[in-house]
């Protein structure tokens, strides 16, 4: 194989030989190479296939805009599909594969699609595949879906570590080309906090490819000096390999740093991020993102070997790679002539420069033949270019043999980040391109993105931009003086726009990756899809992985030309994040797998674990759900035993996850009276009360108990699920609705370990550790107060409340003592047969007792629906939800209301979520009577029981209904009943 590696190359290190594979073939390159430069050096012009027609494609660019050279790099969990070979740094052992081709990139069966080209024009699929109707689902769609996409993603999890980080600066400089470097240096010298970010592996941008001298110094020496000084400034943070991918509100910029993507696996530090997401908060921004060289739309412009003229120069000067042996250039601007000079300086033959301008104003003194007023209309060559056909201004054609063609159709400023917040780019006839929007608060554009050409002009512009940006912050500075700046002059270099070579023979591509040709854009116009957005959506132009970086402006030009208007009138499609694609890994950071969300652990977690608890995720918490004992193989064995233990002896349950709020203040009672729908004003010290909180729309929000612990001091509990929501709601009420009330709240959820001690023996157990008298007389149902424990060594809060329906207490102790106290309770309870019980048993017992939870309080029920309508105060002037609770629809007697339900035959089972039908009714939504909200097996009753919300439920107790579960295909005859299955008279509670 011929090597295209020649002398020179400022970025590569020829002592550092790196081996890699491309489609299984072992090749080598050097440190500093990109995969693209090393492939070119190895003579690999054909590297991939296009999406629709599977046409052979080569490397077009040397940067982020690459539409063609997308490779899959790596394997298994480290497999990166669709990686731009032009951005991937070469490392030893790298594995790269071509995509979207079978059996291989050189011979691809899918290329047969090309023969159907005329049928497969823009939008063809909208007009076809409809006959016969059934074929779509069975034949067409599977075929289309099989052909989807380019690279194949791995199904393996990624072993890499990722993270996120915030950064702050006075000035963010985006892009480290000559303009960006000058801006950073200017601001850095003025003492500002500067971050300069560049997507490349090295700083320099356009300076890297610059072969000639600047002022009196070689370009790479100038670059070295600049970077050296920036590194020495402590207030300047340099971020290489960092792509600023989006601009968000309030000057927050998203950037992704490819920290270790360029390293072979054995060099990766597992504790360091593979990629790091930066969220940069910038006070001012200098946008120095440069400009993208545009391809020209002509017949056969996609043949491997056709490359951007500027990219050729980069490969030549930075990587020491020749684009070919005999090269032609096709350009409508003068910058491409520098490529010709650089090629010739390295002894590469430049066969011709084809310039559509009739009298180009250039100072080219090279040897190449200059063909003015001409265009390239066709190319030939099967897998790589062999010749071009030039159409002269006299209409004659000439075929010129070449093995590479450099193209330049002008420059499109990279305005993305200036437009992400809604700004519209502005067309400039002078620059033949869309310039950044004029009013971008806090962002100053400079260099090529602002239309400047030439290193010196960009140096000067960068300095000026930084001075301006810093002045906004009240910082005076002086533009850094850089080589060549004093000689910088704007040279008139009129570009002649060519949106499409009209004489093109064969397909002239606009969007390479999506195979959108000029004829497709014109077809879209003919069919009425003539708005730039419609044309994009109909043809898919600009929708590939490169997001139209090389294609959008040409498509706009073609639309404009055909409509006879300026491209400015057509306008661009919307620039949206991301500038270049960003991995999920980077955006997720460390929040993956078990670390997706943080875990909250109860202070009794360790105690529960030692007692064998099975835990269940409940929001952020892990709660103990049951405690299996030896010999219990099925969860219900344990749950039934736990229930029986509580019902006959005593049990202990961790309820620490309930929300707990300390409420203080002179107006606390008045405040509680307004946030609960039932009365709270006269709750005496030492008493707890069950309360229902409504939302302002009159539906139940949450329930819980609030106890008065002292004058102006209350202690509220909320459900676990709504703890955060209730506190936020309470703060809204206190701060916004009634700031005149003196009420202060502190979340105390974490301060207390709280246990329910329930069962007929609960008092006996607690008496052993509580010093105070807790007899029924001294501490009756709903008593609540601080108690002394363990001979005065500890204080706790004791509440006589019960969710299980048994004689029960809840004891709260400072969290650190929780495990110790729980252990003590287990020890003293042993003689009474105490057992720990979990949320499952608790759930069973509350259903047996007819108590509601969020299974019933589902946001669409009123207190009356839950059988608690009488609790809603009719005496209070005002409370949250009072008025809306009285609306017609909320007092409609046919509303589903709480009722108990059990199977007619005790051996029948049914499921929560089953619906209720009247016997004999058709199965239909119109006949739906309600649904089962909760169910369990009741060990106390020996059969399944449930709670249900049923139309007119309470008045239908005793009725037979159908419990319908269509998902499971079961129907069970049920009987509606009182929801309090156990102890409806509340005798146990008061025992």
């Amino acid at each position, binding site marked *: 194989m011929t090597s295209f590696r020649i002398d020179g190359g400022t970025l590569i290190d020829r002592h550092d030989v790196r081996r890699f594979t491309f489609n299984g073939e072992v090749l080598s390159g050097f440190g500093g190479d990109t995969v693209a430069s090393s492939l070119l050096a190895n003579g690999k012009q054909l590297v991939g296939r296009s999406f629709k027609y599977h046409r052979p494609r080569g490397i077009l660019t040397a940067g982020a805009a690459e539409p063609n050279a997308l490779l899959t790099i790596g394997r298994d969990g480290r497999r990166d599909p669709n990686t731009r070979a032009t951005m991937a740094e070469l490392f030893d052992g790298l594995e790269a594969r071509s995509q979207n081709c079978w059996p291989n990139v050189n011979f691809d069966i899918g290329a047969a699609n090309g023969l159907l080209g005329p049928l497969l024009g823009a939008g063809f699929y909208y007009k076809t595949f409809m006959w016969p109707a059934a074929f779509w689902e069975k034949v067409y769609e599977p075929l289309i879906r099989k052909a989807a996409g380019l690279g194949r993603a791995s199904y393996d999890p990624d072993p890499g570590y990722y993270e996120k980080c915030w950064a702050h600066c006075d000035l963010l400089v985006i892009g480290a080309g000559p303009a960006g470097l000058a801006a950073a240096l200017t601001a850095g010298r003025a003492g500002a906090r500067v971050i300069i970010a560049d997507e490349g592996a090295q700083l320099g941008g356009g300076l890297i490819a610059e072969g000639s001298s600047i002022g009196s110094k070689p370009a790479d020496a100038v670059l070295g000096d600049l970077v050296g000084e920036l590194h020495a400034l402590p207030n300047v943070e340099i971020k290489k390999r960092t792509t600023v991918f989006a601009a968000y509100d309030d000057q927050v910029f998203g950037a992704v740093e490819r920290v270790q993507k360029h390293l072979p696996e054995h060099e990766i530090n597992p504790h360091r991020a593979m990629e790091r997401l930066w969220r940069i908060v910038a006070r001012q921004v200098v946008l120095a993102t440069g400009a993208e060289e545009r391809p020209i739309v002509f017949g056969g412009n996609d043949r491997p070997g056709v490359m951007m003229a500027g990219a050729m120069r980069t490969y030549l000067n930075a990587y020491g790679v020749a684009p070919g042996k005999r090269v032609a250039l096709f350009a409508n601007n003068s910058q491409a002539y520098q490529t010709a000079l650089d090629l010739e300086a390295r002894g590469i033959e430049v066969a011709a420069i084809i310039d559509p301008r009739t009298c180009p104003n250039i100072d080219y003194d090279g040897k190449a033949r200059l063909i003015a007023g001409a265009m390239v209309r066709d190319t030939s060559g099967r897998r790589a270019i062999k010749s071009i056909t030039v159409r002269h201004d006299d209409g004659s054609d000439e075929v010129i043999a070449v093995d590479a063609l450099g193209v330049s159709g002008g420059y499109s400023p990279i305005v993305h980040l200036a437009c992400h917040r809604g700004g519209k780019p502005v067309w400039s006839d002078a620059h033949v391109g869309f310039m950044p929007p004029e009013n971008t608060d806090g962002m100053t554009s400079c260099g090529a993105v602002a239309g400047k050409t030439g290193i010196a002009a960009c140096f000067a512009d960068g300095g000026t931009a930084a001075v301006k940006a810093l002045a906004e912050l009240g910082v005076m500075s002086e533009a850094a003086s850089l080589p060549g700046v004093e000689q910088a002059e704007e040279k008139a270099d009129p570009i002649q726009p060519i949106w499409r070579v009209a004489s093109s023979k064969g397909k002239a591509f606009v969007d390479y990756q999506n195979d959108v040709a000029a004829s497709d854009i014109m077809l879209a116009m003919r069919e009425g899809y003539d708005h730039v957005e419609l044309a994009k959506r109909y043809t898919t132009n600009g929708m590939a992985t490169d997001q139209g970086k090389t294609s959008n402006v040409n498509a706009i030009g073609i639309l404009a030309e055909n409509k006879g208007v300026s491209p400015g009138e057509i306008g661009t499609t919307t620039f949206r994040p991301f500038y270049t694609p960003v991995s999920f890994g980077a955006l997720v950071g460390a929040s993956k797998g078990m670390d*997706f969300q943080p875990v909250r652990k109860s202070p009794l977690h360790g105690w529960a674990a030692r007692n064998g608890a099975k835990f269940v995720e409940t929001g952020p918490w892990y709660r103990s759900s049951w405690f299996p004992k030896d010999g219990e193989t099925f969860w219900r064995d344990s749950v039934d035993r736990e229930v029986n233990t509580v019902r006959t002896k005593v049990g202990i349950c961790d309820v620490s996850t309930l929300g707990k709020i300390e409420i203080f203040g002179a107006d606390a009672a008045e405040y509680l009276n307004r946030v609960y729908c039932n009365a709270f004003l006269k709750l005496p010290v030492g008493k707890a009360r069950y309360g229902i909180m409504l939302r302002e729309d009159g539906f139940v929000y949450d329930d819980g108990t609030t106890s008065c612990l002292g004058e102006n001091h209350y202690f509220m509990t909320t459900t676990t699920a709504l703890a955060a929501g209730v506190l936020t709601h309470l703060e809204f009420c206190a701060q916004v609705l009634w700031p005149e009330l003196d009420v202060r709240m502190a979340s105390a959820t974490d301060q207390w370990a709280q246990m329910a001690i329930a069962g007929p023996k609960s008092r006996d157990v607690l008496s052993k550790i509580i010093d105070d008298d807790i007899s029924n007389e001294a501490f009756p149902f709903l008593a609540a107060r601080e108690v002394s424990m363990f001979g005065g060594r500890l204080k706790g809060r004791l509440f006589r409340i019960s969710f299980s329906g048994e004689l029960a207490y809840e004891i709260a102790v400072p969290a650190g003592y929780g495990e110790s106290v729980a252990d003590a309770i287990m020890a003293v309870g042993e003689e009474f047969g105490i057992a720990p019980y979990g949320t499952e048993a608790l759930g069973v017992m509350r259903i047996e007792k007819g108590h509601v939870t969020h299974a019933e309080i589902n946001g669409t029920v009123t207190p009356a629906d839950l059988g608690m309508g009488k609790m809603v105060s009719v005496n209070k002037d005002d409370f949250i939800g009072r008025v809306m609770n009285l609306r017609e629809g909320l007092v409609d007697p046919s509303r589903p209301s709480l009722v108990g339900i059990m199977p007619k035959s005790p051996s029948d089972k049914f499921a929560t979520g089953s619906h209720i039908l009247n016997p004999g009714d058709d199965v239909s939504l119109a006949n739906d009577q309600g649904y089962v909200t909760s169910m369990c097996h009741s060990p106390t009753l020996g059969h399944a029981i449930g709670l249900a919300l049923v139309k007119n439920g309470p008045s239908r107790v005793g009725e037979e209904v159908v419990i319908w579960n269509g998902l499971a295909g079961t129907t069970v005859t049920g009987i509606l009943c009182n929801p309090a299955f156990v102890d409806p008279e509340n005798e146990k509670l008061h025992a």
Partner: protein
Amino acid sequence: MRYSALSLLGNAFSKNKNWKPAWRNPDPKPNYDVIIIGGGGHGLATAYYLSKVFGVRNVAVLEKGYLGSGNIGRNTTIIRSNYLLEGNNPFYEFSMKLWEGLEQDFNFNAMVSQRGVINLFHSDAQRDAYTRRGNAMRLHGVDAELLNRDQLREKLPFLDYENARFPIMGGLMQARGGTVRHDAVAWGFARGADQNGVDIIQNCEVTGIDRDGDQITGVQTTRGAITCNKLAMAVAGSSSHVAKMVDMRLPIESHALQAFVSEGLKPFIDTVVTFGAGHFYVSQSDKGGLVFGGDIEGYNSYAQRGNLACVEHVAEAGMAMIPALSRVRILRSWGGIMDMSMDGSPIMDRTHLANLYFNGGWCYGGFKATPASGYCFAHLLATDTPHETATAFRMDRFARGYLLDEKGVGAQANLH
């Protein structure tokens, strides 16, 4: 021109030079029987069914931008009818049935793909809620299936079953759910309506509404004044803004929702899957991109864009569900403006003005509703009575307390 195998072949031979415009580009006439404000999916579908089913053909659709420039072109393309409430479920099922025959009906391939929609659940409480919902669907004859973990693992082996913070327990599947090529829906309805004589007028922004007492007489637009006998609003996203022209305040807030697409991948996931322990839903487009989204931004917005915090939130949920997404790169994000109603369900009703009709409040469920919304709104416009599947979408349900609150979060728009 009717699209057929023959027309495709014929045009291929003539190098596709003879295709005719899919729709006309008419100037507004001075008067229409019905003016529909909003040339998005719902407005165009309304015009289509008005002209096709109800014989009302003197109709204009006024669109301030290009046709389909609203949410029809910026959603995640999902269709499903897995609703819980009696007021919603029959309507969405009606929509599903219309989807199933749509392409033959309007002779445009919108690539309706019934690849299945699976909603994952991660707790007993979620399973119970999905059981209730699945049974409500079944009661109405809608297909629904509860999958357990093993059945799910067979279908979607690459979900995180082993190392998940919130382990997946199962899923509720609607096999008839799926995706549709969103833009094509707007184009198909537009082309069909145009062929029936409807004037689709682009770049025509309504700037004022003329009235005489409680009668609407016409509209002021950037292309002049136009009179009409009936005026219909189908401008979800901007409902409050347009309603303000007739001093109407609505139970609606506008919120931005971001959606995303990844780089094109070879077939990766062949159903629509919704995560149950975070905000994330995903499907794969026919071009190979993973199309996904999450929750709204949370703040009122008329800017069609969002912020990074929400992007990260969505990505985190996505990877919690599918760990293999780590090296999949996200290509593009975009934003749409949702009419978030105060109970999370749409409004389709007459208004306090005699001949003004309102259609909006679709929250983020507007796309799947497009055909039925068009059909039912056309029904309302033509007959002055709601279609039998849309009787619950009344404007006065908020005042009267007959809410359609699927989530049960109450009168806070950004929670729905």
